[in-house]
């Protein structure tokens, strides 16, 4: 469609922003005495397609365009935005944001230089430019595969969403960076019915790519079949036990546990404010020596990857925990300044409506030395956690909850009955100390996770090998 790939603020656009215009806006933003300012231009085009009842029921499309202006004075932030890129509207937003600084000398913006970025997600053909019929065919294929899996599948929903986000960041300390961020996400949900028993299963994935996502082992039929398999398997699910048990996490998606249990606590804003349970723990043993945890924004085509963050800093691979020792936090500009370190490319925001915060990109627990089989075999009675619907953590003390949608009882070293939906509850640092076996089978989750913080959602990746945790509380219904 005509509106694609034409961010009006990029060179040649209707409201093209060059260094001169940006500098004038930054100067206005700093005119009340702020010590730093940045501009974040965003143009996003997205579309979604939904199939239900064997029909493409709905298509949607949306366009967002806007500018966010941030001014800081010490640790205080002023923020304003506008959806109208007319000069006087942008100038007004710059002045409103600047009001946070009441008085003081006004800094001048530095001359800008273009930030050089790597390309971690080159896309030859963005999916938005592919005829919609191709995407509708994917939905139909998934629907068909799910229905064909078992006659007890009574309902299938399949969806495809795609977006391209173009950003331009200009900072008063001279950075000018732009990026084009593609995203696709495919998901299937199936409901199985057998007599009075009903269950559902979901499968999905995606990343910063085009329709080339559907190559090799990843195809629409596969997701359809997998959603159906889970729904059917769960028909036989039994009530989960309640109490403390050893838990084995399956590779890939289980990284959500890591994301919640330790990731958030290592975002440096909480540590700058001393409100995280990891405050003051740098250099200390915070996890079992088996654990090395990284956050890596440079993973090829992953959902959580970024070439440059939303403050104009290039992304990187940051080691957070090395052999159990806490070695670093994830920073945005404010926290990097506070801790006197270089920003590592973790300053992210949902859109021009919000200020950046330290956020995760792709967070991973690195592989260990045990085969996945021997890990399961080592457990006499416990829970094997395979798929999660989500999790939540209390940053201040690390207490967390995860909801399992596919899990199995382990009895005498073997996976036996599937378990009904159940929660794992515990404390992040405690659980990481109890990690006593790590598999060789590291996997990055197929791109489907979105992380929420302060009301802002950003796409993230997670990854783990098989992990054995000696003891964790399982919230079942059976004593």
């Amino acid at each position: 469609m005509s509106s694609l790939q034409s961010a009006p603020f990029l060179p040649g656009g209707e409201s093209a922003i060059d260094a001169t215009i940006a500098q004038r806006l930054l100067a206005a933003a700093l005119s009340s005495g702020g010590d730093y300012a940045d501009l974040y231009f965003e143009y996003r085009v997205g579309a979604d397609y939904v199939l239900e009842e064997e029909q493409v029921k709905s298509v949607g499309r949306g366009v967002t365009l806007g500018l966010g202006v941030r001014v800081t004075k010490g640790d205080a932030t002023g923020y304003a935005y506008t959806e109208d890129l007319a000069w006087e509207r942008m100038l007004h937003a710059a002045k409103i944001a600047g009001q946070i600084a009441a008085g003081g000398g006004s800094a001048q913006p530095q001359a800008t230089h273009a930030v050089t970025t790597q390309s971690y997600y080159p896309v030859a053909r963005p999916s938005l430019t592919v005829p919609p019929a191709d995407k509708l065919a994917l939905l139909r294929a998934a629907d068909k595969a799910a229905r064909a899996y078992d006659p007890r599948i009574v309902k299938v929903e399949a969806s495809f969403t795609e977006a391209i986000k173009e950003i331009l960041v200009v900072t008063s300390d001279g950075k000018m960076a732009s990026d084009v961020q593609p995203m696709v996400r495919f998901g299937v949900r199936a409901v199985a019915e057998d007599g009075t028993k009903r269950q559902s299963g979901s499968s999905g994935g995606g990343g910063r790519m085009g329709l080339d996502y559907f190559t090799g082992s990843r195809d629409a039929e596969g997701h359809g079949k997998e959603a159906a398999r889970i729904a059917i398997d769960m028909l036989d699910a039994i009530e989960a036990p309640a109490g403390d048990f050893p838990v084995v996490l399956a590779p890939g998606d289980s990284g959500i546990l890591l994301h919640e249990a330790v990731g958030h606590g290592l975002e440096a804003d909480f540590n700058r404010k001393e409100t995280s349970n990891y405050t003051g723990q740098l250099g200390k043993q915070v996890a079992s020596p088996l654990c090395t945890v990284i956050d890596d924004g440079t993973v090829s085509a992953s959902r959580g990857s970024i070439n440059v963050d939303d403050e104009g800093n290039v992304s990187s691979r940051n080691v957070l925990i090395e052999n159990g020792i806490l070695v670093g936090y994830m920073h945005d500009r404010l926290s990097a300044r506070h801790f006197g370190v270089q920003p590592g490319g973790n300053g992210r925001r949902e859109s021009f409506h919000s200020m950046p915060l330290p956020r995760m990109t792709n967070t991973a627990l690195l592989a260990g030395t045990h085969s996945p089989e021997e890990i399961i075999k080592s457990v006499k009675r416990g829970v094997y956690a395979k798929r999660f619907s989500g999790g939540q953590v209390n940053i201040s003390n690390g207490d967390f909850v995860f909801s399992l949608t596919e899990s199995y009882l382990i009895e005498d070293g073997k996976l036996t009955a599937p378990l009904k939906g159940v929660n794992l509850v515990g404390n992040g640092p405690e659980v990481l100390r109890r990690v006593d076996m790590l598999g060789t089978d590291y996997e990055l989750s197929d791109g489907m996770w979105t992380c929420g913080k302060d009301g802002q959602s950003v796409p993230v990746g997670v990854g783990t090998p098989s992990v054995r945790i000696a003891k964790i509380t399982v919230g079942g219904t059976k004593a």
Partner: protein
Amino acid sequence: MSAASITHETVKELTDAAAHVVELCRAAGADASEVLVRDGNELTAKVRMGEAELVQEAGSRALGLRIFKDGRRAVTYTSDLRKASLVGFVQESVALAALVEPDELNRLPDQADLATSIPDLDLYDDTVADVDAAWALRQGIAGERAARAHDPRITNSEGATWSRSLGAVAFASSGGFVGGYRGSYASFYVEPICDEPDPENPKKRNGYWWTASRFRDQLEDAEKIGIEAARRTLATLGSKKIPTCELPIVFDPEAGRSLIGTLFSVANGSAFWRKSTYLLGREGTKVASDLVTIVDDPHLLRGPGSKPFDGDGLATRKNTLVRAGVLETVLCDVYSARKLGRASTGSAGRGIGGNPGPTTSNMIMERGTTPKADVVKHTARGLYVTSMMGFGFNPVTGDFSRGAQGFLIENGELTVPVSEVTISCNFDDLLQRIDLVGDDLDLRSSTACPTFRVSHMMLGGSSD
């Protein structure tokens, strides 16, 4: 009147704009169309450790469109409202509808069902617009200071946040509906932190308290909120896991109201036609104990969830979902009602970029007869739940399991603070096992309930 004020003229302007775009759609070849326009502004002022941390102030406007053509529909939105852009946007939207397969239920609501008048529900207070960043920051400073001064054990703070939003919404459809209204909302939060004194087990404890209203003079005093936030935070010091067992659970309204939201997720037309609910086929039967009556009331004056018309342009009305334990009806928008062969309950919600779907307005579990204090007093041993975490609910089976925090009840009194446990049982059982309902009800939020007790649930905790 401040620059942030939303005037009757703003509402009129939006309504005219929506009607104009309906005309553009007609010109572009749509059989029918619906246009939603929102305009609003926000102010957020956050204070932390006595200093301003954030002032965010901005206005925004966006337009959402639903196009019908040959029984097909497309849903689009844009924040690019330049006249020239809009024409192209409308044309693209009409073209998009051709991709969809026809669905005979995909059509406008019947004209006779559309709202014919727009009641004034007293949803807008212009004094909210008078607040400026400096005043909001002073509220934050006062509230946070009160929390920190309350007890030396309050060692840190997530801050105090005063925020407001003001806005207008207008809706027009080619079926003949045109209407709009405005609303205001303000809230204030204080979030103190304290440290566990035990050096062997260093842990931080956080808590919060809040006030919110559409009307500025109904907000509670900032210092009072700060002190209550401090009290609640301190009460969690020494929280511990307790052994796995089955026991009565008393839900504080702050935790309980999320269960009202859980009930809605399975008691709506969309979940019904999709068969994504354990309540399928249960209308007219007992789904909760006799003590439970749950209504959805969009007409509460000044109510946080009140609205004069719904996302389909239908008049809103009070619906009783559960009366004395019997499921009477589920909330429907026009589409889900058609799928189920019944009439809409006037419960359509609609975001800028989405199709209408069933939603709640003010969904309330009605108060009972047991004095609030007696709910705990009559419980020999149990868990008083103040907050829950996680999302462990399967709508299809009703399996329910969430992390919980609160206090042990011993001999009718709150004793030890408890955390890191889960509470589980099937949601159907949970509602049927409600055996005490308090006489308290606080309508600060759009889902609300009194204090209530569930006779027994499984608590997952330590293994000894």
